[in-house]
């Protein structure tokens, strides 16, 4: 696999994101790690259904994990633009697992924002080092976006909670050392920091076979009277889970959109390069009017998505991004991601259907974005209710 050509369009003059030299250094380092240490192993990791622990440890050594956490907890106190740079590089390299953004931007912040001092001190440095891999378990076989319907229960018993239930579609589920688990408690939905090592009554399934994202494991989790200490209750108060989950969704959707826009730009760059090389009927594919028009349409849609993404990122950094805007962003960028990647695959013709061509993988890996982080139908509900 070769590195994709540089991003299409006038990224540099157009961006309003305040990237600094330190972001670019971080980006370069991430790119080197991905190219040198992940890309060559991609097929093996896909075969295994996940990236090995050694990749996480190496990412931790390089400072690619939990860099937004405070320095006291092993982080670098970095801003979200570092996460943006890492996500963009990961997408451009075509590396799905290790799912660093899930670990960094979704799981760790629960501990940082809602955990008590002891929880933070125990969990965050280990996550930053890549010693512990994080996961979050919300979805159940009977409840996806519909969180209130969850049936996993955590019953208080002395100094412990006894957890029973069944989760599914859990990313990093097979490799996680720490699972942020949502369960019903007497006081409502609560989150627990579940340490999986040696936990009796806990089991995870084999990685589920998915349409794409093969190097990232997604599994079922089973809890059968699993006993966790009372100190595992995130923040120490029952019933806060629903509000905690809701509060984090804005950022999760924002990062999903970062991945979607990066995917769009990568697909376009690859497709422009391919159609400029490939000949058909005596001329380059890009010289056919239809190809040029389709690419022009895709580039414009990409530009609009990027502009809106950047506006949302700026608002997020200023603490002003609303749930409705995040829903609009997630909805539109992931829809466009799927449409544009599909149009790009079409311009590759038969090669686009062959897995040796990156566009086919982008196409397969993209399908999930319209479903996870709240399905796009849920996004429309959120927007629709705010009308």
């Amino acid at each position: 696999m070769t590195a994709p050509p540089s991003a299409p369009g006038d990224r540099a003059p157009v961006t309003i994101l305040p990237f600094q030299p330190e972001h670019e250094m971080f980006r370069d380092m991430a790119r080197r790690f991905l190219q040198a240490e992940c890309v060559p192993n991609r097929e093996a990791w896909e075969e295994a259904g996940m990236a090995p622990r050694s990749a996480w440890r190496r990412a931790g050594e390089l400072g690619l994990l939990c860099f937004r956490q405070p320095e006291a907890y092993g982080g670098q106190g970095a801003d979200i633009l570092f996460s943006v740079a890492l996500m963009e590089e990961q997408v451009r390299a075509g590396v799905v697992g290790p799912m660093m953004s899930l670990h960094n931007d979704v799981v760790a912040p629960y501990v940082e924002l809602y955990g008590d001092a002891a929880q933070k001190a125990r969990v965050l440095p280990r996550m930053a080092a890549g010693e512990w891999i994080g996961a979050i378990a919300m979805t159940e076989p009977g409840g996806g976006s519909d969180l209130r319907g969850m049936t996993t229960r955590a019953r208080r018993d002395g100094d412990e909670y006894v957890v029973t239930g069944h989760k599914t579609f859990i990313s990093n589920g097979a490799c996680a050392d720490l699972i942020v688990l949502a369960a019903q408690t007497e006081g409502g939905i609560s989150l627990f920091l579940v340490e999986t090592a040696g936990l009796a009554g806990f089991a995870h399934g084999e990685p589920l076979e998915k349409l794409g994202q093969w190097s990232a494991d997604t599994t079922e989790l089973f809890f059968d009277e699993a006993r966790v200490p009372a100190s595992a209750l995130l923040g120490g108060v029952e019933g806060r889970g629903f509000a905690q989950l809701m509060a984090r969704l804005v950022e999760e959707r924002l990062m999903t959109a970062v991945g979607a826009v990066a995917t769009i730009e990568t697909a376009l760059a690859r497709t422009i390069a391919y159609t400029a090389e490939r000949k058909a009927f005596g001329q380059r594919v890009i010289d056919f009017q239809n190809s040029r028009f389709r690419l022009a349409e895709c580039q414009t849609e990409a530009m609009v998505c990027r502009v809106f993404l950047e506006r949302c990122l700026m608002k997020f950094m200023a603490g002003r991004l609303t749930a409705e805007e995040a829903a609009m962003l997630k909805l539109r960028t992931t829809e466009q991601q799927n449409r544009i990647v599909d149009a790009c695959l079409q311009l590759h013709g038969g090669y686009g259907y062959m897995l040796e061509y990156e566009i086919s993988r982008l196409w397969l890996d993209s399908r999930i974005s319209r479903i996870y982080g709240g399905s796009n139908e849920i996004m429309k509900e959120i927007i629709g209710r705010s009308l």
Partner: protein
Amino acid sequence: MIESPHYTPEHEIFREGVRRFVTRECVPHREAWQKDCKVPRDVWTRAGELGLLCPKLGAEWGGGGGDAYHGLVIIEEQTRAGFSELAFYLHSDIIVPYIELYGTDDQKARYLSRMATGELVSAIAMTEPGAGSDLQAIRTRAVRDGDHYLLSGQKTFISNAQVADLIVVAAKTDPDAGSRGVSLLILETADAEGFTLGRNLKKVGCKAQDTSELFFDNVRVPVANLLGGEEGRGFYQLMQRLPEERLIMAMSAVAQMECGVDEAVAYAKTRKVFGQRLIDHQDARFKLAECRTTATLGRAYLERCIDLFIEGRFDARDGAMAKWWTTEKACEVLDDCLQIFGGYGYMKEYPIARRWADARLGRIAGGTNEIMKDLIGRSL
């Protein structure tokens, strides 16, 4: 709400003035003007009196010395009031800049301040029956004859022609020189012998805006009225101005789709169907959510484009992207919004019906959207 750092409280004050003029002095006459397929000449004079013409023109010429957001404010207020069709911007932000940017000192002195007051209303004549977006194919000729050019040919789809005192005409001064043979001439229509105003064409929408054919039969135009005083610069001048023209069209498209969504949401909240409000039906709610999302992206994109323009970084490709995307989405969104209204959406008394018809022009004017894609496609 406009989020740009370039948008200031002064723009809001300007907006108040525009809104008063549009709602009090235009909207009450809209239907009559639409029947006439044009507005009375004094609408322009009145707009000039109120300082609503040429908001961007330099203050030394009697203009407002403002920026692209002033233009946006006028378009937004006209659109919100359901009177988007009258193209003040064509005069103020498209034609006046030709003279301000390319005119000789004499041309600027003769015309600009009178254009700012509305004493002179302008039109621009590029399109011909056989040449639209394909500008190099124009056949109108300007033949030098002493101190004059003799202008011959015909033009079509010319907005403001019914009221125009000045028409900037694109003509070939050297038919063998391709794009370098095109020049712009400023024709003063009063007593111009050989100049005939053709039919005021009936259109799908934009009813109160006149759109006409023009005929030139050896019309004498003084050499002093050659824009900029140098032959062969016309194609370059036109090309230079197109990004801003397309940005203005994007303003109109975004304003139009936002108003359409607002109206459709308001209607869906009051209209009852099968015992519940229309918006309580999931399909209607989802459609409107998508429309609102498109309009929100359109707004963010438009403001980014205007900011780039103000900062001098908005290029031809940006203009092409902004124009095709916003006009295409406006039509899609307005069609969905019209559908929300059911049968009422087909009745002209509902603004959504007029918006739907008016917006259709956006995909054609200012270079068709196919031309936009061609432009972008060539820069891949």
